[in-house]
């Protein structure tokens, strides 16, 4: 039972209050993108066994979407943060590096 802190209402919400939303920080490819770019945007999700940036919604709570950095192997949560950003903020990166010194942000 995952437990994530909603950065908007500050509640440590359990999974049953939340709705998962898949990989975070996707770049939307609309008209003008080529087939490969569009396929990657739609389907080719990062699926790491390790640190994963993902979207969650506090569905039964304040209804806000937020981001989480979580390890898909140990389920350790490095932090949650605003959904209105296109890359993880520095404090999240620091939190991850403190726990996983040899981790590198995938290209």
């Amino acid at each position, binding site marked *: *039972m*995952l*437990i*994530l802190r909603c950065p908007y209402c500050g509640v440590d919400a*359990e999974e049953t209050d939340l709705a998962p*939303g898949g990989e975070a920080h996707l770049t*939307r*490819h*609309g*008209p*003008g*993108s080529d*087939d490969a770019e*569009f396929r990657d945007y*739609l389907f080719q999700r990062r699926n790491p066994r390790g640190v994963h940036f993902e*979207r969650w*919604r506090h*569905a039964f709570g304040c*209804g*806000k*979407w937020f981001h989480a950095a979580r390890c898909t192997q*140990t*389920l*350790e*949560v490095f932090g949650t943060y605003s*959904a*209105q950003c296109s890359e993880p903020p520095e404090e999240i990166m620091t939190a991850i590096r403190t*726990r996983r010194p040899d981790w590198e942000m995938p290209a």
Partner: protein
Amino acid sequence: MSSRLATGGRRIDRSKRLSFSFNGTKLTGFEGDTLASALLANGQDLVGRSFKYHRPRGIVAAGAEEPNALVALGQGDRMEPNQRATITELFDGLSARSQNHWPSLQFDIGAINARLSRFLPAGFYYKTFMQPRAAWKHLFEPVIRKSAGLGPAPTQGDPDRYEYFYAHTDVLVAGGGIAGLAAARAAAEAGARVLLVEQDSRFGGRSATDGVVIDGTDAEAWVAEQVAALSAMPNVDLRLRTMAAGVYDHGYVTLYERAGDRDPGAAPVRHRLWRVRAGRTVTATGAIERPISFAGNDRPGVMLASAVRDYIDLYAVSPGDRTVVVTATDDGYRTALAVRDAGLDVPAVLDTRPDPKGPLVDAVRARGIRVEAGRGIAKVRGTRRVTGVDICAQAGEGAVIEHVPCECVAMAGGWSPVVHLWSHCGGKLLWDETAHHFRPDPDRPPTGADGQGFAVTAGTASGPMDTGAALADAVEAGHRAAKALGHDKGAPRIPQADGTADGPPAAVWMMPHGAGPELRGKAFLDFQNDVKVSDVQLAAQEGYQSVEHTKRYTTLGMATDQGKLSNINGLAILSDSLGAPIPEVGTTTFRPPYTPISLGAVAGEARGSLFKPVRRTPIHDWHADAGAVWEPVGDWRRPYCYPKDEESHRDAVNREITATRSGVGLLDASTLGKIIVSGPDAAAFLDLTYTNMMSSLKVGRCRYGLMCTENGFLFDDGVVVRLSEDSFLCHTTSGGSDRVHAWMEEWLQTEWWDLKVWTSNVTEQFGQIAIVGPKARSVLERLGGMDLSAEALPFMAMAEGTLGGIGVRIFRISFSGELSYEIAVPAGRARALWDMLLAEGAADGITPYGTEALHVMRAEKGYIMIGDETDGTVIPQDLNLGWAVSKKKSDFIGKRAMERSALTDPDRKQLVGLETEDPALVLPDGAHAVSGQTNRFGQQETLGHVTSTYWSPTLNRSIAMALVSGGSRRMGETLDFSLEDGRIAKARVVDPVFLDKDGERQNV
């Protein structure tokens, strides 16, 4: 045989007699008995039959680890199969039946398997029953299946109630023995919130029975003192009959409280499933004694030495006049003393160790009890119960030295910590070379959200088996758990226990050590599943070397006790067969729950009327009173039709349609989704979320809009109304409102957060009533309050005002092709308006209609229905809705996807109308058009399928819509539709708009 002793019995209250029945025989026991102790007290040694060989089975243990004493408890709709007698508290009127035998427990036909056991080794069924092929289905499998299962299957629903309870605590302590109590006290005194749960009906565990003395007082008094102290603390909750069932990710724990098992029928809650979020979980779950593998160790009368002690001390039950103790540990001697103290005979203590010594050994010798060193049991004599044992040298091959008559054999193979809770969520184990057991590795605990370990072990669950060390470990554990959460008032005092630690146990995995195949084939590891030492060795021999392979091939540890008694012994045999050390062989995975929990508890309170939410419109009660036939739409209930007395559904639907098209009909459209989209960027946002251009919509006007996924597929539709320059009302499908609203918020919050837009799901603020048909206007005009003339309120326009004194918003839109007004009214007044309309329209024969009439009327007009014409793979162009897909807009959700080759393929299926050659024939739902060719897979090639098909009372013929490959090119073609019976129905491809192509009926 077993019997009740004249005196003693720590737990029983001899003044409270309870009557119960076993296999129909009336028996009596005492308050405080378990069903198991009461059965033994009544001399009932034989309690069941084993799974595979149907061998006679007796009670082996006194707790949750019991593999044999499983009964069908209770009767009728309260019968529960496979209930463990050792953890079933006796109550007056309890009735139990033994399981897995026919015709009777005493004489069981299935026991023939025991005679054939030699031919039925591990996995024998993988090697045979294959020829002839038909025989498996018709002969072998039916026979195997008949013999499957233990207890009887219930036949009725369950009248009892279950529920969840959500609890949060700093420290959860699992186990209320002396370790659990000590840990809880340490944590509580440090200031932490503490929840302590004990699966048993008493606190204190084994301590009193084992004669533990703490701080100079006997265990019973010490435990009472701890319980009193803890109960007095406001930050502590102690709970009995509550088992920690499973430990989950992020430190979540489920508890199983058997709240009502002692008074079936009367208790308001049978089982309560606690869902606990604990900062730290202390597992003070104790240890379980290991049996010893010798030939005939499964005979009734062979018990764990600790269980023999329990039955004597707690329940004053004699397991038999003469008890032979066979032990690899000092602990076995405690049983010898307990038996002798009860005035019973101990013919011999067989100690596998060559040179047993220590205070316990001396005490036993001092009592004149015969101690045989380096000895073991070659074979147990007796069939339905023990009559004696053949003694042999442990070191040898089993040559019989002496026969000793006895009624009970007490096995003391050493103790293994209960590591289940620790392991459920990934805690790792260590193999202890001296104690010969797996114990938790404190350096590799299960970790939580913060990456830190969230479990701490306490007492014997950590490994140490002597009281002093266990207590010290427990206090430290409780303190550490609290401290990790910021609660610390300094190191707590550690209670002192008297006595010295036991000497090291011997590792005895097979008795005698050199036992041949004959004996190994009779030495049981898993009593319930009949897995023998020889089976594990066979698995290893055949290459099923992984512990998981062995488990699955032999079914070792897969019984309802999940291997609590058999796992370690089985592992040891396997490692011995493979010549690999035990830690390398490893353990199987520990899965929740610790012991089985009722499915009722898993489901919680959600049963019957509370199973799933039902959404009711403000007019729901009227529909119910009118005898509506309900159709579930999402969680909503909508009237399908309103049959009058004997009327068939189809007749009712036809009547509703005819009445509406010829006069006036009334529809409760409250379930339609309604979402307000407002703000300076509202129009821009809707241009992105709809395929249509919405920014060009004029204030006060309505436009039908489509929403696609980013994949290009149509997923919702509805009428959009521009309420003001920067405010829109978006209608969605019934049951689509939550999805669409969440979808809009998702894009606003995670992609286009720079847009100034607010949304609000106002679906439930309004009831919505559609008044439909040529006479709709006159009914409304008679109600009065608004000018509803074609000029004032033309088609696709919106007006606000009051009708019959109620504030409303009226949309001139139509899903039927008729003159139609959809009236939005505050939900609290919707029923009132509905009643007014019915009254006012009575003169015109106003007729409420349901969803089926709605569907037929929309089909007559060729309007699509999300979910019928769409299935998640359909794009607007497929439905001839290309006109609603803006070419002007540079972007909208789904635009890019529509450029992909598969979505621009001219042979895509397209929506067409169908007219069957036989107008009376209504095509079956989902029927396929066939080409007469076969496709690359050798299947009949299909051209398309029927999406909607109805009898049209208006056109007095059948009509249908279908998605057909290259459909628009096939106008006028006749297609062959294949029917269930293989016959072909011919249908002509036509324009899907069957009625009033020019829309004259609605433009009035």
